[in-house]
């Protein structure tokens, strides 16, 4: 895909490491968020653009293993970091336990918040496998969902916790 044009005189060229792969950003505008760069320059539209001010979590990605909103990070500021997006979770032909549980429990409707939630829930369960219900609610409270009322999402998280505890 051809990268979009830029804003004259404010362009910058740099490299980003996303999902273990090096990507080049050619003549990007300095003011572009990491979210814009991922979506519009690198062909990785999995992180979503719902509020673009860090309120909704739809653009959740991991930056050096820290969960961030990609809309609130400048693309050029992510140079040298390991970036992991939803595209780097699971394989095209094999889903992770979290992805399977979201489908089995009915946690997906329109799906716009789903990629951010998949990233956030993986992060939560990696850090706090035994998170209790309130901790789960608090961890997910940064990811807005307008379709589900969260009930099936809680069920999906609990299902993964049970499954991992039994394994």
């Amino acid at each position, binding site marked *: *895909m051809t990268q*979009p*044009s*830029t*804003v*004259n005189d404010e362009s910058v060229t740099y490299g980003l490491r996303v999902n273990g792969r090096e990507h080049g950003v050619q003549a990007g*505008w300095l*003011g572009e968020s990491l979210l*814009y760069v991922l979506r519009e320059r690198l*062909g990785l*539209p*999995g*992180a*979503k*653009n*719902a*509020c*673009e*001010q860090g*309120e*909704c979590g*739809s653009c959740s990605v991991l930056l050096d293993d820290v969960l961030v909103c990609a809309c609130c990070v400048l693309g050029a500021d992510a140079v040298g970091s390991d970036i992991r997006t*939803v*595209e780097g*979770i*699971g394989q*095209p032909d094999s*889903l992770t336990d979290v*992805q*399977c*549980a*979201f*489908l*089995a429990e*009915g946690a*997906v*409707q*329109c*799906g*716009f*918040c*789903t*990629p951010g939630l*998949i990233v956030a829930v993986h992060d939560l369960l990696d850090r706090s496998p035994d998170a209790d219900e*309130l901790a*789960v609610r*608090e961890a*997910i*409270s*940064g*990811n*807005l969902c*307008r*379709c*589900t*009322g*969260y*009930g*099936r999402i*809680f069920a999906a998280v609990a299902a993964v916790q049970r499954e991992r505890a039994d394994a």
Partner: protein
Amino acid sequence: MPDGSATDTATASAAHASATRTATRSPVRGGVGSDADRPDGIPKVQGRFGFSSDAFAEGMLWGRTLRSPHPAARIRSIDTSAAEQMDGVAVVITAADVPGRATFGLDHPDQPVFAADVVRYQGEPVAAIAAVHPEVALRASSAVEVDYEELDPLVDAEAAIDAAPIHPDGNVVRHIEIVHGSPDDASGEVVVDGVYEVGMQDQAFMGPESGLAIPDGDGGVDLYVSTQWLHVDRDQVAACLGLPPEDVRVTLSGVGGAFGAREDVSLQVHLCLLALRTGRPVKMVYSREESFFGHVHRHPAHMRYRHHADRDGTLTKVEARVVLDGGAYASSSTAVISNACSFAAGPYRVPHAHVEGWAVRTNNPPCGAMRGFGSVQVCVAYEAQMDKLAAALGMDPVELRLRNALETGDRMITGQRITGVAPVRECIQAAVDLPLPDDLGGPLEFPGGTGRTADRQHVRRGVGIAVGYKNLMYSEGFDDFSTASVRLELAGDGRPAATVHSAAAEVGQGFVTLAQQIVRSELGVERVQLRAADTAISSAGSTSASRQTWMSGGAVQGACAALRTHLLERVAGQRGIDLAGARRQVLLLRDGEIHHVDEGWSVPLADALVAGPVEETYEYHHAVTEPLDERGQGDAHVSFVFAAHRAVVDVDVDLGLVRVRQITTGQDVGNALNPRQVIGQIEGGIAQGVGLAVMEEILLSQGRIRNPSFTDYLIPTALDMPQVEATLIEQPEPGAPFGAKGVGEPPTISSTPAVVAAIRAATGLDLRRVPVRPDDIALAPSDS
């Protein structure tokens, strides 16, 4: 090609298939009644699903809309020259560049594509820009010079009825009067009055308005967009472009939620104009702030009620006056006020009623469809009245509702007899029979949550109940038909595979799942693919009014039936059987085989398809309805759906903080075609009802939106959401395909008044306005 396909045909793997029910008509997996998996589920959890904001085309430009900062103004002049000369700007267009009809609108075209001389609401489009980069488009939009003469905005809906018109069509979009029975003569032994208000709610879907328009090089255009109704988008775009409809081809792109806000045109016309003017693909994505200005909202309501009843609690008369603020343009206000009036007395037997309703224009943001569509606002009022009446009678509020509950055969206040199932009592009983939640937990579960602001001594619990109902499908004579085609053929591996084509907009609700389930049950074919929804096929009607399960479900079922007949005729012809002369059906399609009833032989479906594919198209129409007459009477609606909710809240009365602990519900669903998806609709709808009850409101100041962001317009988070327990009331609806009723809207109707009733019970306050704000509780006058 852009990432325009709304559906992925991959079948979900068996690892997470969880069919928990037996299909009703055939043993094939994933049929009607099962918890079949969404066909778009896997790409959605992988981040591969193509939403409209993900669309991309080589060489595309970025569009941007310039909007009025004033709610009411005259435009003296617009100078686009500086913007046009900026590097990277391809074009700047205004009203002068609209080649066709200057206006659009769902009900009637009263809204300008761009304001030319008068601005009627803050955020009204004035110009649009296409540029090489979104930042360039943004800078160009600030370089467009618009000279406004500000006017005093008309912002009071009550005053608008008689005020000087702000639009050539006048301020009253529709006035309805319902006179049922003999309201002038009727009275009751007990009378209660109330005045109620509902604030402006936003649909707040997650995926902002977005799309991609690609000129076809021949004067036409292809539009990939998020919408609820492809064909009315196409017709409005074509009219404004001055093109025949076939030159505008609309394809549904992945939709990030809708809830009514995508029924009206937002960026569709602007995008196509920019693409045709520049000859290049143009993409547009609203920011969240622009989204608040770019779509219609739920009508704010002002309602005055008087209920009359006998001492035994029998309702004798309801009087109501309902004023809906439609904002600057008509949108669907005529239908919203019709619903508000039709359902103004609630799901109760009311022998005499007088209801007057207005939908008016003001310089506030335009309002139109949102989940519940007019039924939501009046439910807040009539359910508060029922509680008031119960208190005046010294009667249990549940008992009062049970005593007056509508049932099959009763007439509603529009005079229409309810002929379908009406399990109002069962819904109420189910909601109150579910167990109550535990007592107050630890401090983290108090109102205020992890802010740890509440003090246990000041936390009070309250319980409230509410019941609501509304219509399914469009009303008052509108024929919102749906079309579907189904094709059956041999796949590469020699097995039968079906393909469904429908323009029904999948917005997250799961119609794509139901379409597959219906084909599996009807044809006994497990592999069902879905073509992208587009305007290459005739209309499916709107994804609104809880209508797609019934209407497009009916269309898919009808196409399957026609296809079955076609196949049987083919086999009969091959075998020399005279079907026309037969006195009864001798051939049946069953379990993936065609059987001869008398002779006992059968032909595998695959063999019958060797001669070639079979395809049938079916157009489904619902029963004919009629407009309300001058007394507001008439058989205006097709079918009705009911639900009851019980809410339990904990309130910190000092700080005015509310925690909704639990909502239980009994919901009339007809038959649940996919119970897992039904539960998803119920929980999601309740979340929006809870939001309206305690937090969601577009705050207006002289017509200006003060909180157009997710920082300031709050929707429920995972921490705000109560526990939800639901009982599905399954009584098949006569005449409905598979006996199923739509399930999307009822959860959003009575959940709000149930929460408000619970807050009243906890605080003893006479709360008349939703959303209930902390101030309404903490700063309430002590004598109220």
